[in-house]
């Protein structure tokens, strides 16, 4: 039997390569979004620090603002530097 493909639709999935499932700040999963956002993905990305810990970008921004002028990782308290 010969099959002729007339049309096809590619489907891709992606996920963050993270060591743990939830953001340590909001406790929501990384494959979801932070509590301020509606949709996961480009608009609510995950950020990594040089200490290797990661959080939702919006959660991290709020934490750094609340902690001013210090900038520490909410998990290990090392100086926070974006990786």
């Amino acid at each position, binding site marked *: 039997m010969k099959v002729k493909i007339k049309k096809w639709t590619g489907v891709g999935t992606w996920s963050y390569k993270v060591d743990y499932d939830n953001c*340590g*700040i909001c*406790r929501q999963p990384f494959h979801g979004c932070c*509590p*301020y956002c509606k949709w996961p993905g480009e608009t609510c990305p995950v950020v990594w620090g040089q200490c290797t810990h990661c959080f939702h970008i919006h959660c991290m921004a709020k*934490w750094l603002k609340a902690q001013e002028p210090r900038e520490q990782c*909410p*998990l290990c308290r090392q100086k926070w530097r974006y990786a």
Partner: protein
Amino acid sequence: MSNIAAQRIQREFNEVIKSDEAQKFSIKLEMDGSDFRHINGEIAGPPDTPYESGNFKLEIKIPDTYPFNPPKVKFLTKIWHPNVSSVTGAICLDILKDQWAAAMTLRVVLLSLQALLAAAEPDDPQDAVVANQYKENRALFTSTARYWTTVHAGGKQLNPDFDKKIHTLLDLGVEKHQALVALSACDWNLDRALEQIFS
């Protein structure tokens, strides 16, 4: 209350309820009605400390900015400890102030308070009178803290000598807690306690 605070508290409640410590009745959390901002906590006094066999109630207030700011915690149960005010229950603990981190949880706070009961920091006191006694007369501090545990927190160790001194003051018309405070602060010296109360 902001979305993030309410959602996180809900998750933290489940975390505490399922924790090993809760199964062992060592820590407890209860919501005050349906309000996420007011939580009642309870910790068991750690073994081999003057707080052993006592249960200490805590008032936990969650700010709208949680978890970016720490919860406000104080002891409701009266306690004799260098880092807790014997009058107001206010607590001196770094993680409840400038050392708070957003990844910490209520479970961490309760366990840290339990650790504080096991290892006081007399050089960073919340109650200078207690801290002074801790440093100057450790044995007397221990029996005083144990006595407070029995009187206020359901501890089981009795102290007939202290009971007798309290009753002497009660017979003079002094209110019970006032008598306990005065005697504790005066190293259980009746004359000095009397002087403090009636001066």
